[in-house]
Structures are given as C-alpha cells and as structure tokens.
C-alpha cells in the first residue's frame, strides 16, 4: 500500500519481533497488523505456491506432530527420486479431513481443533497477511498448549481453493468442508467468482467422500438462496433437513465462532445456514 510506509514498517517490525523474540512465542498475534482488504480476485494469477498433485504436498511442516519421523531418516540415503515423492505422501500418519475454505482469521478453525482433536483441520485463505496471522496464532497456541499437545491438528495455507483444491486433496479425502461468510459478490457480472456454483460444486464433490458434508453460512439472504439453489441442483449433493442440521455439532460453533458471525451478532443481523451431504456416485448410464 503506497503512501503508508509507516504502517508497513510497523507491520514488518512487529512480525520480525514475533520470530526473533523468544518471549513472544506464546503470545497471540494482533489482528491489527494483519488486516487486508476483504476481496481477492479468484481468477487472477496470484503468486501462489501449490503442489503439482496431492502426492507432492509436504504436510510435515504444517502438522509436525503427525509426521512419521524415523521413517524419514532411514529413507534419505540411497533413495531414488520416485521414492522421495512417495515418502512425502506417506510421511504423515494422518491426512487432512476438515477444510475451512476462506478461513479468514481462523475463528472457526481454532474452535474446531479441540472439538476434533484426532482430526487434521486445514484453514485455506487467499489473503497473504491473513494467512500469516492464522499461522502465527497456530504457533502461539501450540506453544501455550505444549503439555496437552493441543492445536497440533490445526494449520493454515495460502491458496486459491477455487482453482487448486484438487492439487491439495485426493479424491474423497475430506469429510467436512466449511464455507463461512464467503464474499457475496453482489454484481451479477461477478457471480462466477462466488465460492459456490454448480460447476465448482463438482470439485467439492470430488474431494469429499460420500457422506461428507458441506457447511455454509452467510448473512446475505440472496447468497444463501444462491448457494442452496446451486447445491440442490447438483446431483452429487442433497440438503440436510432442518432437524438434522440443528443436531450437527458444528453448526452452533459455525454460528458463534467465526469473526463474521460475531460481527453479525453485534449488528443483530440474520444468519442463514445450509448443509449439504455428498451422495454416492450413481452407476454409469449404460450400467444400471
């Protein structure tokens, strides 16, 4: 942001102090140093790093507590290139099974982590600074909870999920996907930029296992209707009924723990929730 060198400088100083000053390892990052404008164009070529395929994703830095350590050392010597690749896929005891797409400052992520202590949860955020904030918070919370091993199952990556979801996740890898308070993109021209669309739902269906659930929440009724319509039209999904929805343990958390959710609460606005279940793929047309 040109014209605000002081702001940038302050941010840099602050961020540097987090890494160099040991006493700050356990202190939570301050949001004010990580704010970033709310929109990102999902179509443009951001300088993103992403693996060519899920096999090549190195999760070990994200979930160090879940790596198979010894295995790694043994394999290093006299290894062929192919084996190195398979090792990074197999080098983890677990795979990510919950994705919070557009996780923002990670409110939901940090609420879910203790609820599913045995499940790897990943926040995905397209904005660099916001991603950094969540990563710093993960680090701080892990330091604070050293004794219990808490928050080892939560992490965050910067990625454009609308383009690169299949680069990170195998087919049917995920059990839950959260889409919380996504950018509503009011302009009709921008509707393809919405995080839910009929065509994009095919990719959610690809990474979700049958029975897996997509959770959506928004305070924009129009967007809610849009999401419902596009998921209901997609043959791979069915909407959960009211009762089933309210029995889902994540729904209350989703309403209360997201940053946007809290803002809406303060403004006394409405929140619209819809859940969709990934159905089994039907047999091929000629093979009924």
């Amino acid at each position, binding site marked *: 942001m040109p014209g605000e060198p002081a702001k940038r400088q302050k941010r840099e100083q602050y961020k540097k102090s987090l890494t160099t000053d040991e006493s700050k390892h356990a202190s939570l990052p301050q949001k004010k140093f990580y704010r970033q*404008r709310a929109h990102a164009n999902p179509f443009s*070529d951001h300088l993103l790093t992403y693996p060519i395929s899920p096999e090549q994703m190195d999760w070990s830095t994200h979930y160090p507590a879940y790596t198979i350590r010894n295995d790694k050392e043994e394999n290093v010597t006299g290894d062929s290139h192919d084996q190195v690749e398979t090792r990074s896929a197999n080098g983890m005891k677990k795979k990510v099974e919950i994705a919070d797409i557009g996780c923002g400052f990670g409110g939901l992520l940090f609420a879910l982590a203790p609820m599913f202590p045995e499940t790897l949860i990943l926040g995905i955020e397209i904005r660099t600074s916001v991603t950094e904030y969540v990563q710093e918070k993960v680090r701080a919370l892990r330091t604070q909870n050293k004794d219990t091993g808490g928050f080892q199952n939560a992490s965050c990556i910067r990625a454009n999920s609308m383009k690169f979801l299949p680069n990170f996740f195998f087919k049917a890898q995920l059990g839950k996907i959260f889409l919380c308070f996504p950018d509503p993109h009011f302009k009709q021209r921008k509707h393809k930029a919405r995080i839910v669309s009929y065509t994009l739902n095919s990719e959610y*269906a*690809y990474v979700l296992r049958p029975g897996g659930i997509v959770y959506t929440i928004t305070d924009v009724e129009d967007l809610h209707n849009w999401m419902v319509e596009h998921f209901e039209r997609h043959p791979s999904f069915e909407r959960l009924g009211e009762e089933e929805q309210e029995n889902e343990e994540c729904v209350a958390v989703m309403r209360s723990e997201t940053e946007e959710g809290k803002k809406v609460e303060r403004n006394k*606005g409405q929140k619209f929730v819809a859940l969709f279940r990934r159905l089994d793929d039907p047999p*091929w047309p000629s093979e009924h």
Partner: protein
Amino acid sequence: MVPYQCIQVCERSTNGSHEWILVGASGSKLVIQSSNGATRTWAGEDKYMNLKENETEEPPEKKVKLSSPNEYSPTFSCLAISNDKQYVVAVTAEDKCVRVFQINSDYHLHEISQRCMARRPCAIALTSDDSTILCADKFGDVYALPLISPAEDVHHESLADEPNEAATQKQFVPAASLLTVHSGRNRKVLEEQIKLASKGRMKTKEPLQFKHELLLGHVSMLTDVVYTTVSGRNYILTSDRDEHIRVSRGPPQAHIIECFCQGHEEFVSKLCLTTSGFLISGGGDPYLCVWDWLKGRLLEKICIRTAVITFLGEQPELASTLPHNTEGFKIAISGIWSTPRNYNEVNEVLVVCEGVPAFFYVRLESPAVVETVPLNGNALDIAFISASESICTAVVAVDHMHKPWFTTERRADEGRGRLQCFECRDGRWGQDRKLESELEWFSRRAPDTDGERRDAGPALLADDSVRARQKDEKAFRDVLYGVEKLRKRSGADEQD
C-alpha cells in the same frame, strides 16, 4: 492472402468410392478442395440470406453491425468435422460464434446456424453420435449445444446456468439488508444497485436465445476439450491454463469428476488421444506428458524442447537467435495429432510448437523417439489423408506471412505456398510433391473471390477501415499465435 490457421480433412466413402475433402480456414474465409478437384470458397456469401430468413433470432445490434459499410468478417479460430462427415463446425473469434455448415453434395458449404456464445469459445468437440457440440470457453465452462438447433430455439426459456436470471429481471430485490456485515466496497455496490433499481435501469444480460446446457466448469481458461468412449463409458477431458487436465463423465453425468491428470507445471494447451488410448498432453512445459488417463497416472514425460533447440541450432539463419544458456529456453506446444494408423503397433504423434518451422514426429517406444521434420514456415495446423493402408499423408499448414521462428515480423518472400505435404513410409517422413501440386490452388491461390482487405495498403483506406484492419490483424495474430500468451507472468498482482 493469409495463412491457414486451421485445416481439417474429411474423408468419406460415397457410392463405393473413397474421397477426401480438405477444409481450411484462412482468416475469415473457408476454403475447400476435394480429391476429385472441386474447389470452393465460403466467404460469408449466404450470411445475408440466412439473416433475412431468421431475422427474429438475431439480436438487433448484430444486424446493425453487418449492414454497416465497415462490416468486419470475424476470424475462424476452430474447425471440427462431424463423425458422419456431413457437417463442419467452426468458431469465429471476434463474435464468439459457433457456426455449423452442411457440406453439400457439390462441396458447397451451407451455413445452417450461428450461435453466439456469451464467452469466447476456445475449443470444440463433438460427441461420438454427432448429436452435441461441446464448447469449452475462456471462462472455464463447457456447454453442450445440439449440433442441429431444434426448431423451438426461438422461444427457448429456461437456461440451465442462469436460473435466477428471469427472477432478477422481474423485480430487483436488494441482495442484502443494511444489517449485512461486509466490506465498504460490497456496500457501495449494493447501494449502487438499489439506486439503479429505483430508476428502473437495472441492466441484466440478455439470455442466449438458443438451447445450451452447462455441463462442467473450471475456474480457469479452458484450452482443449476431448470426448471419448472407453468400454461403453463416455468421458469428457478438459485442459486449462492452470496445468489441470480433468477427466469427467460424459453427459448426462458430466458433473462427476473421475480424476485429474496432474504433472504439468505450466499451462496445458493440447490434448490428444493415441490410437491405443493413451492421452498425450502438452503446453508450456518443455515436455509432453503421456497418461494412463483413466487412472490419472503419469506414465512418461517426453522432452520436446531439446529437439527444438537442436533444430534451431542447425538452421544457419536461426542459430544466432538461440540464447547461449538454453536452460530457461521456453517452448509452447501448440498442436498434437495422432496419426491415423499405428505403424507396427506403435503409438505415434506429430507435435508442433508455436513459431517453430518444423514438426516433430514422436514415437512412444521405450525410450520415446523424437524426429524433426523442417518446414518452410512456422507450423500452424496438421491434417491427415490416409492414402492407402501403408502410407499416411500429413497436410501441414505453414505460415508464409511471418518469418520462420518469428510471430510478428513479416517475411520478404511471401510467395511460398501455405501447405506442405509429407508422406510417411516405414517411419520416414518425405515431402509428397504429387499431393502438393494437386493442392496448388488451395495452397497458393485460394480464396478466389476476395476483397483483399487485409492486403490493401493503408493509404487506400479511410481511417476507420485502417483501424478496423489493425483490429483484424491483431485478432488474426491472436488466433495464429495465442498459445505462448497463456503463460503466467510472475509478479502480476501480489498485494491487492
């Protein structure tokens, strides 16, 4: 006279005799030559007639454009021939139009439909039963259009992809209340919408007036689409600017993604199935990828860049253009074709790279063999004529307008032909002079009927026409050399 940006061969047997028809798109014209010597040109002549017949179908602004004195003819960017060899499906770039032509018995092309899409089509394919055109567009979507437009098209209403469009047109309801929490920007958009709606000026795009069904979509520009059937199962393969190759089921289950073929590090521009069913893909990477695509498994990478560098280094006039360090040397694979037969049970393809005056003959043996066949100009497109059981002939469209290995500089010796023919005997490609002389008209003279608008000197033209001509030329160059442009430029927009 401009080069042929696309060529296709239509081979068919009628009344027991075998014939071929070569169809080429040169700028905004279609040129035809048949094996029995018939020559035809389509330069939009029956366009006016058609328009009068279907006047109601055309949006008003279209008619205005066509009747203006500076009417431009859009450039063809894709050609496909129906499996039954009766139709040519073509795309014109500037007007984003999918056009279907019937090949009449006297080899005239009769345009039977024009369907202008909302987004520019980048690639087309036909389903094996010829019922449906698959149209892959710049916004990442694949639409299904019936090859033959049904009669009820004019009154077609419900659109698969824009279901709430009608509702928005009826009455605008603000998308959010003032209680809605979002950024200032969103709020501004919303206020603007409310203001416009109160003045009754809410603009909504006019829906397309013909049947089209959204099948699938990437969030990236699509570059190619292939339809194929394996053991009774239909598949759609799509490639995009973001390294992805997606394998989806065919309609009516095109919403199901079977797998991805992941291995490219740059854009993918072309997909090609070999005779025995391997998928070969290429684009901005130095190599081709060979896939067991049903499993999404990368079998092999075949380097093409080395062959390009060696070839350029051997050309006295081109060697100097090569950088000393070829480490970062980039190629853009712009075409891959499977030869019609597989000699000795070996899968083989011809490959061309954008702006490279050669084609590469790749045999998928172990290890793969890459041979280079030099051309008179940059390779643009290839089509095959299977002359006999043992011989296969490739007709290659070459750029006679630009210097070899250059995509903008005009060459001095434009007199060369626009086609070169090669036949393959026992794995060797040699020039086929006989066919070249048979195609003399097609290569050097067609089209006959020609407003030589593109070639006329600027001095002769009014300002408007000059501008129109420059616009034309740019559009044409984009069609000829648009592949390298798919490469991402680094550092475009980090902090926005």
